[in-house]
């Protein structure tokens, strides 16, 4: 595995310039604002509107200095977790992250596996029954999901399953469950309500949290699995026509085993490389979905911050998305190299 180790080290070194680039881009966007506006980045609570205070901050943080000095200062602040002040929430950006991440992660841990599994299943059905009706149905499903505006499908789901049927309300928890979660007996292990509820042995909160997660997760799955389905379909079709598959068939291996044990394994490799694209789509979907379902996570915050021109919050979220994307691509590349030795040795 020596080849693997050098590959990982090389790949780790390669993300440093990308991350620097990402930070420079976010910094450049913030430079559109005047020093006075950017001074708000560093102001805590209390009326920062006083001109004297603004001037003091500009001096203190060197907001009138040359660009490279400012970038250095900004980067130093970011690395220390000082991301400025979110005026839409009236708390520091860093604190907003620590308070809101569990909501978004909770959606992700349910939605992401479902998106991947349904995408792979639909792709498999499509490829195996090529040009017959299961193929047509799953392809139509994919192209519809691909063309659906995320915000519209969310609204329609909400109108039907909450407005008409009253089954799945918006928000993260019902008021009753919330009072339990905020009570003294409740131990917050992770901030993820479904997991905390199990650890606290409270099935009511668990069911309530699941009930609120259902629609956001469903919405993300509907719009999210089309991409995987398409890639899975074409890659499995390709594998099914290769010689090793024919060889397995001529040896008398049952068709099911040919698909599952032989073709599927190789067909999965292109799907793995899609993970980066998926993460980007997922983050975008999260912003919209959390907004419509009033599921107060990072995406909800970013969307509301944007409408209030709370740029420290929006830029911090953009920076966060960039880092998540770069890191997930790194993980994908490592996984890919592990699955396909030609990559690390080539």
């Amino acid at each position: 595995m020596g080849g693997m180790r050098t590959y990982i080290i090389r790949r780790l070194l390669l993300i440093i310039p990308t991350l620097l680039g990402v930070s420079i881009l976010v910094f450049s966007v913030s430079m559109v604002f005047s020093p006075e506006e950017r001074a708000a980045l560093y102001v805590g609570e209390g009326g920062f509107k006083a001109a004297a205070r603004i001037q003091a901050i500009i001096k203190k943080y060197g907001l009138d200095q040359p660009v490279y000095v400012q970038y250095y200062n900004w980067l130093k602040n970011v690395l220390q977790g000082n991301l400025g002040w979110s005026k839409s929430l009236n708390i520091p950006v860093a604190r907003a992250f620590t308070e809101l991440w569990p909501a978004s992660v909770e959606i992700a841990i349910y939605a992401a596996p479902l998106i991947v599994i349904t995408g792979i299943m639909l792709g498999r059905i499509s490829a195996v029954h090529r040009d017959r009706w299961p193929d047509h149905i799953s392809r139509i499903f994919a192209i519809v999901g691909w063309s659906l505006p995320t915000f519209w499908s969310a609204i329609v789901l909400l109108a039907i399953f909450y407005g008409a049927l009253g089954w799945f309300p918006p928000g993260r928890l019902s008021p009753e469950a919330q009072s339990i979660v905020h009570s003294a007996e409740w131990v917050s292990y992770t901030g993820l309500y479904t997991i905390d509820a199990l650890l606290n042995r409270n099935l009511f909160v668990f069911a309530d949290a699941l009930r609120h997660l259902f629609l956001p997760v469903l919405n993300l799955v509907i719009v999210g699995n089309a991409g995987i389905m398409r890639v899975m379909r074409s890659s499995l079709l390709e594998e099914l026509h290769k010689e090793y598959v024919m060889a397995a068939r001529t040896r008398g291996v049952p068709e099911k085993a040919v698909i599952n044990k032989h073709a599927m394994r190789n067909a999965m490799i292109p799907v793995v490389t899609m993970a980066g694209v998926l993460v980007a789509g997922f983050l975008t979907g999260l912003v919209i979905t959390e907004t419509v379902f009033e599921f107060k996570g990072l995406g909800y915050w970013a969307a509301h911050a944007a409408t209030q021109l709370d740029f420290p919050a929006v830029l911090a979220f953009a920076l966060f998305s960039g880092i998540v994307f770069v890191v997930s691509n790194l993980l994908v590349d490592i996984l890919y190299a592990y699955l396909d030795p030609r990559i690390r040795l080539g």
Partner: protein
Amino acid sequence: MAGSKEKELGRVPLRERAWFKELVFTLKRIRESPLSLAGLTIVAFFAIIAIFAPLIAPPQPGRDPYVMPRHGYLATPKPPSDEFPFGTTEGQYDMFYGCIWGTRTAFRVGLLVVGGALAIGVTLGALSGYFGGILDEIIMRITDIMYAFPGLILAMAFVTAFGVGLDNVIKALILVGWPTYARLTRAGVLQVRQEDYVEAARAIGASNARILLKHVLPNSIYPVVIVSTLDIGSMVLTAAALSFLGLGAPIGYADWGQLISMSRNWILGEAGNPFAYWHTYTIPGIFIFTFVLGWNLLGDAFRDILDPTLRRR
């Protein structure tokens, strides 16, 4: 000098020209795929609505045609009726008018975004691929960095910096969109750069600008133009999402995303009638969905257009 020499070599007949061959190739691709034909029909239908918008929903004289007319100031939307075929939305804005002129907004946003992104992308991509070296390195690293952000989120950041509004959404999407076209153009230019006819042009002393504009770009730009055209659907979708979030078109503007945003207070209907205001979100939603679906179906025939082994000239 170089120009007259080339002229002596004879004019290229129409059916030998790169763009003409590509056009024939495109039409063939569309004709071979029924789904693409359906997509083309949908897109053509929307194009007709957009072109004839002033006849279908005549604007009041002397007013900005992109602002929906209001019929009263009552907040509660009214259902579809003879007077208002699609009903009215919050604030008594005429939904029919909004959806029809929203089609124009969609085409305007789509064409401006794709046109702008294409102009920047092709220019930078061509320079990058043709000259190579440090310029190539810089431009490609910038595209790498842009690729590290989800499009909508980067666009959100740009809009926050530029200020809310449809024009700023268009600018933001141009800034987000160009790297794709820069990469595609660069790849095409790299392929063509080594061809004999480019060598020949260089041998007779043609300038770099001439080689690039007359020989390299016409033979490499085509797939990029196709891909960018098919992106109109997804660009309009992103712009609609930004309008929905309240970053794009202002309230009352004929824009599908904005219309859906205006419906948000009415999703739950009223007591005893949960779908009392179904028209406020369903109708503009169907417009966006069908529009994007049309472009995506059309694009289905071209998924593999960049794969040279599948291309036959």
